[in-house]
């Protein structure tokens, strides 16, 4: 004859208690990887850092970066450049981004130079065959620079120079590629 299981009521109670704890924690813990709720850039950066620290939100980096840019647009000033630079250096040090990625994120928005103009081969063989795509990428990058340099950092001179550089590159590439393609 089988003896009655005396621990059964305890097991049931434990199950109920665990379920209650889980449900309670769901009610109080904020949903993971939320966007920063503050309008203050420095506080927002700290929020984002704390979300990224665990590693679980790393996949949301692009969204966070965009959130930070939007917050900075609300309070544009020259110092914002430094805030973004320091934030990106931190992401690189924390191993969330490689150094090259961090550099690209920064330069795409806050530098006059175009990251889309990178290439190790000469213009005749590499740039000219894909000139349209290069110019399209540069155009997109110019609009990111408008955001970073003009709307976030109020660096009008740098944005104007980037715009001028875009036009110069367009002209010089047109001439260079015409010369490269000329078979006379």
């Amino acid at each position, binding site marked *: 004859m089988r003896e009655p299981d005396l621990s059964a009521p305890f097991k049931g109670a434990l199950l109920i208690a665990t379920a209650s704890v889980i449900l309670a924690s769901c009610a109080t813990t904020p949903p993971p990887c939320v966007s920063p709720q503050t309008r203050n850039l420095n506080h927002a950066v700290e929020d984002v850092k704390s979300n990224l620290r665990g590693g679980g939100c790393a996949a949301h980096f692009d969204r966070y970066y965009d959130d930070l840019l939007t917050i900075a647009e609300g309070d544009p000033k020259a110092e914002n450049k*430094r805030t973004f630079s320091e934030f990106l250096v931190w992401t690189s040090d924390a191993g969330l981004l490689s150094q090259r990625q961090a550099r690209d994120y920064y330069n795409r928005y806050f530098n*006059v130079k175009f990251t889309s103009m990178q*290439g190790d081969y000469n213009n*005749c063989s590499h740039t000219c065959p894909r000139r349209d795509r290069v110019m399209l990428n540069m155009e997109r990058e110019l609009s990111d620079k408008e955001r970073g340099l003009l709307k976030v950092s109020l660096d009008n*001179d740098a944005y104007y120079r980037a715009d001028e*550089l875009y036009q*110069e590159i367009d002209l010089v590439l047109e001439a260079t590629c015409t010369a490269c393609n*000329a078979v006379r």
Partner: protein
Amino acid sequence: MHVFRTRLPARILPAGHPFALNRIAGLSFIISLLVSVQAFANTDSPTIRLFPTTVVEDLRQTSSVAKEMETGLQEVIGRLDQQQQLYMESKCDGAEDDPGCQRLAKQLGATYLDMLGIMEERLPDMEHTVNNTRLSLEKRIRSELGNKMTSWTLQETLLGGNPQETSAPSPTMRGRSGMRLSERFKQYYQLVASSSSQTDQSLAVLASDIYLDMEETSELIARTREEIARATLVEQLNQSFGTITPEMMEIVGGVKSILFGDETSPMQIAGPPPGSFEQAYRSPLEN
């Protein structure tokens, strides 16, 4: 590239053993002088060689050929304008059967043929010099900007030393059609001839600008030459009937605008938005 030839005058050349030390000292002085001159030349000369003397000479030649063509055409175009005005003032438009109007139309047609004749005579020279300039520039651009540079180095060249600094006023002149052809080439020549004072960044833009302009001019001249034979034949036929075709007026108008520029005001280039004068922040992440 500059080549320095140095020859000591015979009378000061040291000769024989007693002067051996003088000779060595003299030679080393010359060598050090040459080295320092070379070093000076290196620091001063642009690192990209887009305008060797041949290109500069081609530009000067093109400017003078264009000037000759304009001078030849100026008188005949002036005459055409006067005759056309007289034709209009005499209310000949719509009165083609009038004998006086027919005479005026024939005179106009003859002047038009003169213009075509002058163009036919001068255009080959123009075409030749424009093509020479275009081809020599094409070679330099392909070598210096196309084969020796990557997209990144090209960007750095265009930016110059300080990317944050707004560049000097651009020498770009494309699209400014309201300028005489010879004047345009003269400006090109002057810009290029003083190129030692220009930076690589503006030289690359200038070379590209001139080259693309030459491409367009070259095509335009080739098309015009093709048309001249046809237009001459048509006008010779018209001479028999004494009519003025709208095409004739259109061609004269086109030639005038190409050679002497049109009335449109020069293109306005927007200035930079008001910038901040604070010291720019430089990130360690910047390229």
